[in-house]
């Protein structure tokens, strides 16, 4: 963790030193041998998917919480956040660590540096969702290319994880559709449509943006190694709209 922070600072310094030497224009979208968009690489975290997913809405939109969910998100305290005890962040939550996409013809994987050293697998071999899947932290994801967009459809999530530090909840009816695009070498854009008739009155969409991270590697972040979070987490995370109400 501290090493990551140090490296981030070092990169910031280097970036300012070498800013003049950066290529002015990004390269075109890389493609695989069969002509498909190649999403492989290390991508930066989008801060809008960390503290409060309200940050990832289009301007003027709001999250259509059902009353019980609106009450719960105001009541949830940081100490009860599953990530505080080193559990996976679920989907589409991000943490302030980069992640890597590994792409093969039959699968796309996301390897997370943190919060837990874990992976998510997306089947692109044409299989459907299973009929009665076990609910899991990363759900069951199937993907296909629509033109240059990778469309990922996910179900079978457990109800445990939160969407963000704010504590937006969901139920086992959660259905997520992510649409990934790589318009050029350096940028990854994704629209994430969340449909959960158990907790929200209608579907809503979050908009994500990540940058390709050159010249770095995923470090190893093992949350369980020395986790002292919970005893120090008091009250509610202040970086969300509900803490100000």
């Amino acid at each position, binding site marked *: 963790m501290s*090493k990551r922070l140090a490296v981030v600072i070092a990169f910031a310094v280097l970036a300012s030193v070498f800013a003049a030497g950066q290529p002015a224009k990004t390269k075109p979208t890389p493609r695989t*041998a069969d002509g498909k968009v190649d999403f*492989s690489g290390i991508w930066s975290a989008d801060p809008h998917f960390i503290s409060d997913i309200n940050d990832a809405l289009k301007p003027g939109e709001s999250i259509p919480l059902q009353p019980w969910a609106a009450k719960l998100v105001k009541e949830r305290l940081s100490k009860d956040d599953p990530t505080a*005890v*080193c*559990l*996976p962040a679920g989907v589409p939550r991000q943490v302030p660590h980069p992640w890597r996409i*590994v*792409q*093969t013809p*039959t*699968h796309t*994987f996301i*390897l997370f540096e943190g919060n*837990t*050293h*874990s*992976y998510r*697998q997306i089947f692109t*071999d*044409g*299989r459907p969702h*299973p009929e009665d*899947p*076990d609910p*899991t*932290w*990363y759900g069951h994801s199937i993907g296909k290319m629509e033109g240059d967009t990778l469309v990922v459809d996910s179900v079978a999530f457990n109800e*445990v994880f939160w969407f963000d530090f704010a504590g937006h909840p969901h139920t086992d009816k959660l259905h997520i559709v992510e649409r990934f695009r790589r318009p050029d070498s350096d940028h990854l854009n994704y629209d994430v449509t969340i449909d959960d008739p158990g907790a929200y009155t209608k579907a809503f969409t979050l908009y994500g943006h990540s940058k390709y991270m050159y010249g770095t590697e*995923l470090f*190893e972040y*093992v949350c*369980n*190694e020395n986790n002292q979070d919970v005893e120090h987490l008091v009250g509610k995370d202040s970086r969300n709209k509900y803490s100000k109400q």
Partner: protein
Amino acid sequence: MKAAVLAILSLALTDPVRAQWLNYPTPGIPRTADGKPNLAAPTPRTADGKPDLTGVWNRISPKYDANITADLKPGDIPPWAQALVEKRKEDLGKDHMAAHCLPFGPEYSTAQRYVKIVQTPTLIVMLDEDLTYRQIFLDGRPLESDPQPAWMGYSVGHWDGDTLVVDSAGFNDKTWLDTQGHPHSEALHTTERYRRTDLGHLEMETTIQDPKVYAKPFTVAISSLLAPDTELLEAVCNENNKDLDHWVGRASDDEKSEVKVPRETLAKYAGTYVEQPKLWRTVARTIVITAEGDALFGDLDGRGKTRIRATSASNFVGIQGGVEFVVKDPKTAPTDLFVKHVSGNYRFARTK
């Protein structure tokens, strides 16, 4: 007894019930006329002609999972390391990574676990059901000379003909090399050589060099069987880990509470028992029971002969959650035994 039963909780957490597995047929693999995967079909290859190691593999490693040094002579292990192993056994393995939901590090490549191998030209990823991943870079980068020690270490690979050679170093010294607790230092360097001999078989030899612990490098060979038409099942250790609350007692407690069983009864228990049915495993488990005087021993899948101690005339502890012999007629030998586990009792029928 209680301690022994509870000590296997971590196994339960990493040993999900396969009956719930997805059974989607793996697309694109050769099949025989009856639709079954043709495990003897030729080794699949990638577009660039390299063997393709991609797939879900069931590593058959009962011996080295328990004891990576099983083939070494006693003198090959320094006394301090042997003493540490004995202490870890006496503590019922409560400091094994599994009990603390920590990554297994180098033990992932020799433990009896499922692994999904994902192969790309520049990167191979190995995925474990506990959601831990391991990256092996094939892009020509060298290993660092002074890496920050990490749980999973650092791995680079290259092709030597049809063999994938993986060199790894930079491990921290917090992990064990096996269930018994053989230690390693930060100087550990492993060299794995993987060969997919046909569709269904993956052979691996790993050479373990750690001069700070083991005077000589040693090599173990482990086979994996393809697990087609199934998938990894997410098993998140942290989700409900109550292990440490219950991980009490010592191995020697069983000795203190041992019940005396007549020699002639123990002799009747001796035999080979095979799991019925084999459940989700590719290979049915076997337990060999031997009697020596007043002592009874069990060897589950060749993990090594382990003393088991009586808590009653037919119940013994020392392997998994215990072993119970089914004695229908006191004058004859038992027909079956149960190997107990938190997920249930598993019946093994006597075959000889």
